[in-house]
C-alpha cells in the first residue's frame, strides 16, 4: 500500500505477528520443558507451540516481503 513513506501497513502487520508469535512460541517451548501445574483444556496439543510458529512464520513473511528496504526500492523503481 502506498503510505507516503517507506513503511507499509503490511510491514507493521508482520512486525506485530512476528514478535507476538515469537513470544508465544518461546512460552510453548518453556512449558514443554517445565509443564505448568494448572493446565488448560487440550494442553496436550501444545497449541502455543504450533500456533506461535504459524504467527512467527507469517510475521517473518510479511516483514521481509514488505521491508523498508524493498519498499524504497519499489518506490524508486516506479518514479
Amino acid at each position, binding site marked *: *500500500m*502506498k*503510505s507516503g*513513506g517507506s513503511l507499509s501497513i503490511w510491514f507493521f502487520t508482520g512486525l*506485530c505477528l512476528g514478535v507476538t508469535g515469537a*513470544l508465544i512460541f518461546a*512460552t510453548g517451548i518453556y512449558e514443554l520443558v517445565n509443564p505448568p501445574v494448572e493446565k488448560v*483444556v487440550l494442553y496436550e*496439543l501444545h497449541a502455543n507451540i504450533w500456533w506461535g510458529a504459524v*504467527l512467527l512464520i507469517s510475521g517473518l513473511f510479511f516483514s521481509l516481503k514488505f521491508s523498508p528496504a524493498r519498499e524504497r526500492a519499489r518506490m524508486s523503481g516506479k518514479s
Partner: protein
Amino acid sequence: MNLALLLSSNTLVHLSAVDIAIIVFYFALVLGIGLYLKGQANTGEDFFMAGREMTAWVAGLAFLSANLGSLELMGWAGNSYKYGILAAHWYWIGAIPSMLFLALVMMPFYYVCKTHSVPGYLKLRFGPGAQTISSVSFAFMTVLMSGINMYAMAVVMKVVLGWNIHFSIIVSSLTVAAYVALGGLRSAIFNEVLQFFLIWAGALLIPILGLIEAGGWNGLQAKILHNLTELNVPNPGSYTHLWSTLGNFNSNPMGINWAGIVFGLGAVIAMGYWTTDFLVVQRVLSAKDLRSAELAPIIGAAFKMMVPLIVILPGLLGLALLRDPHTGALIRLVPANIAWSDAGQAQGLHGYDEVLPLMLARYCGPGLLGLGITALIAGFMSGMAGNVSAFTTVVVYDIYGTLINKNATDEKKVHLGRRWTIWGVLISIGTAYLAARAPSIMDYVQALFSFFIAPLFGTVLLGMLWKRATPAGGWTGLLAGTLSSVGMYTWVKLDPNAVRYVALSMDAQDQAQNMFRALWCCLICVIVTVVVSYLTTPKPDSELKDVVYGLTPIPKTEHVSIFHSPVFWGAVVAVIFVILQIIFW
C-alpha cells in the same frame, strides 16, 4: 450495574508476564504508527480521507474491521449463546447482500460525487435541511457508540482481568486520541488492518480447539441438543438451524419469523448500516480509484462470511462444552444484569457476553491468553477510533464547514480535525459514564441503529434512485422516520403490550423488536418522502447530475481480466453465501 461488584477481586483469568509483554508491545506499536504517520496528514484530503490512495485490500479490511469492535465480538458471541445459530444471520443475510449492493450499485455514486461523508451526499442531493438532520444525528450517534464501546470494554476488562474501570477507560482513550489526532483517518485505517489480523490470530484457536473437543460439527450439534434438553430449554433443536425454524414466531429462541429476518434485518437494518453508516462507508471512500472502491466491500464481504467462525461458533461451543470443572454440572450463562447483580456475583454467575472470554480462558495458556486479550483491546480501540474519526469528519465538514464557516481553509480544517478528535474522545468518556447508568447497553446500541440508520437508508436510496424526490421530501421523510422510530421505542417502553403491534408477536425478543421497528420507520420515511415530493417542486435534471442514477455518467473502469472484475468476485461471494444458507438451513 453495581460498581462495587465490578471492583471485586473475582476475575476469570490471570495474566502472566508474557501476556503483559504482548499487550504492552501492542500499545507501543499503535502509538509508533501514529507518530510515523503524523507527517503524512497535512491536508484535509490526507487527514479525513487518508489521501484517497488506499488499495482495495487495505480499504476492504478497514471497512470490515471498523465494524469488528470488541462490543461486536463479545456481544454476538453472547447472542449466539442466547439465540443459537440464528445470530449468524447478522453476518450473512444481515451483511453480504448489502455489502454487494454497496459495492456494485451505490459506490459509484459516492465515488463520482467525491463527497467527504454521507451527510455531504445528502447536501448535494437534498440541500442543507437533510444534511443538517443527518449530520447532527450521526455526530450524536458516533459519540454515544464510542462511549458505549469504551464502557463495555472497561467493564469486561474489570470482570475478566480485574483491571480498574477508570484505568481502562483513560489509558485506552488516550491511546486512541493520540493516534487518530496524529495521523487522522490513515492512522485509524492502519490500526484497523493490524487489528483485523490480531483478532483472527487471537480468536481462531477457540473454534479449532473447540471443534476438536466437541467431536466436530455433528458432535457439537449432539452435545447442544443433549445439554439444552437436560436444562428443559424449549425448542432445543432450533439452536443449530438457520432457516428451518423461522416459520413461526414461537418455534425459535429469538421469537422472530422469516419476514423479520429478510425484510427487517436484510432489507432495512443491514442495507442501512452497510450503505449509509458513514463510519464504514468512509473507509471505502478512501480507496485510490473506482475499481478499488468497488472491490473493497466485496473483499470485506468475503471475510465477513467467515467471521461467524470466530464469533458465533464460540457461543455455540459454550452451549455444548461449558461445565463446572469440579462438579461436572452444566454452566448456564445468564443475562448481564443478573450475572453482575449482588446475588449473581455471590453465586459466581457469568453473563452471556462472557462466553468468549470463558472459552479463551478454557483453551489459552500464557502467551495465547495475552494475544486473545490484546485482540479484544485492539477491537475496542479500533471501534472507538472508527467512531471518533467519522465524528470528526462530519463535525468539520458537515456542521462547521456548512453551518458555521463555509470558507474555512484546508489548513484550518486539519487543525480543527485534530482538535475535534480530542473533543470527540473527551465527549466519549462522558458518554461512557452515561452508559454506566443505563440498565442495558445492547438495548441502547440497537435502539440507536433503528433511530438513525434505518430512516437514513430510505432517504439515501430514494435520493439515488428516484429523481422526482425533492429537497422538502428528503428532509421531512428523514425526520418522520427518525421520530417514528423513537416513538415506537418509547411506546413499547411505556406499554410492553405494544410489542404485539410493533413486532407482530408477544414472543418477540429485543432483537426481533429492533428488526420490525427498523422496517416500519424506513417505510414511514419512504412514504412521507414520496407524498411530500409529489406535493413540492423537484430540482431540474441539470442540478441532479452526479447524484441520481440515470443522470450520472458512471466512469468506465479500465478494462481488466475477469479475475480482477468486481462483478465476477461479487458473484463468487453471492454463490458462497447461498451455499452457506443451504448447509446450515
